[in-house]
């Protein structure tokens, strides 16, 4: 059944319907299914989670916390019994970090392409199987060759058919207007704690800004803090701090 696109606000929806009268007759509004990362401030920021069947982008400079956030999303996916894929174009995935984030490793397919072209092709292949809830394409910091617009359109359509979240992890924004949701992370400061003579890296304070959201409100931002508790059972703590 043909559907109306999702509008960021009721006003923009009304504007659209005025410009194109009669469109709403026989058309149902598209339902967005979301994949929560089970971190309350983030899920609130994203109005429920990352949209399924869409291309989303999470970017930020080195040490901004984007990989930690993506691992939390992957952990949430595997905890629910679904499967996730990590396409490691940057060749940087650290399995110990996956285990620490609580990811069920047998539910993760780790693909290590040798080139950027192989990474894009791997994403398309994985999305053709229609069984993975999350596909993370970790592009790393250096993109040797800028992908064409056609590549994003193909991936976008493949994600829609697979009903999966396709999350692009980059150092800089790559997708332009092709991403349904784009979030930028910016590190504010690292937190260190001193216990006796010894110092420990306790956590990281990061600001998350939703730069583009075709399925909800844009320009929202949250500050969040990720770290670990020195005392106790080393559980990760992620909390809103502003």
């Amino acid at each position, binding site marked *: 059944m043909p559907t109306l696109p999702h509008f960021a606000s009721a006003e923009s929806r009304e504007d659209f319907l005025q410009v194109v009268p009669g469109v709403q007759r026989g058309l149902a509004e598209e339902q967005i299914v979301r994949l929560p990362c089970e971190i309350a401030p983030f899920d609130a920021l994203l109005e429920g989670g990352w949209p399924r069947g869409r291309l989303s982008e999470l970017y930020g*400079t*080195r*040490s*901004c*916390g*984007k*990989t*930690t956030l*993506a*691992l939390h999303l992957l952990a949430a996916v595997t905890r*629910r*019994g*679904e*499967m996730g894929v990590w396409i490691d174009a*940057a*060749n*940087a*995935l*650290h*399995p*110990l*970090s*996956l*285990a*620490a*984030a609580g990811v*069920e*490793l*047998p539910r*993760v*397919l*780790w*693909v*290590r*392409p*040798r080139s950027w072209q*192989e990474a894009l*092709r*791997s994403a398309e*292949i*994985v999305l*053709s*199987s*229609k*069984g*993975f*809830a999350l596909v993370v394409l970790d592009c790393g910091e250096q993109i040797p060759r800028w992908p064409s617009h056609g590549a994003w359109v193909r991936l976008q359509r493949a994600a829609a058919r697979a009903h999966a979240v396709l999350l692009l992890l980059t150092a800089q924004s790559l997708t332009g207007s092709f991403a349904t949701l784009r979030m930028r992370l910016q*590190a504010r400061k*690292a937190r*260190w704690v001193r216990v006796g003579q*010894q*110092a*420990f*890296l306790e*956590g*990281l304070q990061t600001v998350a800004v939703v730069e583009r959201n075709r399925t909800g409100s844009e320009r929202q931002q949250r500050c969040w803090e990720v*770290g*670990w508790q020195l005392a106790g*059972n*080393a559980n990760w703590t992620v909390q809103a701090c502003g």
Partner: protein
Amino acid sequence: MRIACLYVPAFPLAAWLRVEPELGTQAVVIVERTEPQSPVLAASRAAWRWGIGPGMRLSQAQNLCRTLIVRSRNPLLLESARAALVDAAASCSPLIEPAEDGVVYVGLEGLIGHWCISEAQWATQLATRCERLGLPARVAVASTKTAALLAAMRRDGVTVLAPEEEADFLAPLPVAALRPSEPLLTTLERWGIHTVGQLVQLPLRAVGTRLGPEGVTLIRRARGEEREPLQPRLCPVVFEEAMEFESGIDNLEPLVFVLRALLDRLAARLEARGFVCAGLQLRLHLLSTGWEERTIAMAYPNNEVKALLGLLRLHLEQQPPQAALDAVRLRACPEVLRPSQLDLFLPHGPAPAAFTTVLAQLSSLCGSERVGSPVVPNTHRLDSEGMVPFGSATRQAVGTTPPPSVLPPLALRRFRPPLAVEVFSERERPDFVRGPGLGGRVVSWAGPWRVRTEWWSERPYARDYYDVQLSDGGLYRLFRDEEQHQWFVDGVYD
């Protein structure tokens, strides 16, 4: 017991047509060697129309038809065709007795009424499976092997002879159809016995007296009282297809073209037997050095020709043959793919068939060693990591999470291999770091955490780890290798 005979007429020709089906409508003959005096072993229907038949000299045949296509008898193709015929039979019954070239006897014991409604339906299925494997076979069902073979040789398609019809069917056939020895056939012809119907009229005792045991056996076969039972054999499960080339191949593209045809036939045979391909063995006959064997592992067993061909192509691109080759053998390692029960309470994963294809495609694209599930080996080394084939890791593996002291506080993005950097220290604390792609003054730091393990091995692991924040804003994990006396950046926290 009812017995079926699977018969492929002109088997050497059928073996060639299985490889080159486009020759099916043309005048083709098979000879032992492509020499003018070599006799024709088999001829296609189109060749028969030109008056060419087995036994004729090749030069005679070529005089009759200028456009005659000549192929020499190929033992490799015959071997593959024999195996394919056995596969077709084994897919329909466990009781198989391979006989001469192009003939397989199959027992129907316990099949009719359970697996198929009637013998005709079963025989049609068997013929269809043979057709799928590229062998146009005739199937006949009768009470004895002789009757079944004769029916299959005389009639096209599927024939089912009821026990009461067998005598009527055999009666008009010439005695030579029962394949008696030459002297016995001459004697019978001298007696005026030309057909099987006349032969069965002879008194058994008198024939025994005059012709001996061979005569008695012949009459018993003619009467359908054959005492030779079906002798089922356990056929080896070998899936191999081969091809020889007239001239050496020294290019990848024609080789891939041939491999695709081999894979098509292998996949059809595997599918007929209910197996999937779990690995491939490729044997290349190089003109200079002889046979060279290669093994191609697979991430997940499957029968998708496209994916298997991708694996082979990738392997050959990475390790091309060192010389031109004139023969190739491809063997598939069969495996039974066990269906898995879906969980009632968990979301469905990818469909197994689609998932198999995906894994195979990914393996062919990136290499099978680059696709799998991450694992954390049970060791104290902080750089240890591994990958296992997806689906082989159990949930128990999750329990091997390392102790909290080892866990990184944030997700670590590793540099592979670790970046060698220069670290300037002041009062035994890192003060400045300089390396490729990073550098700056150390703003904050923590450590060292000394990790010493595997001291008993040749390369002991002795490292002092530091977490540092540089003035460029990056949070890094550094270590100093005590063995190499060198600083490295293990990764960046992100």
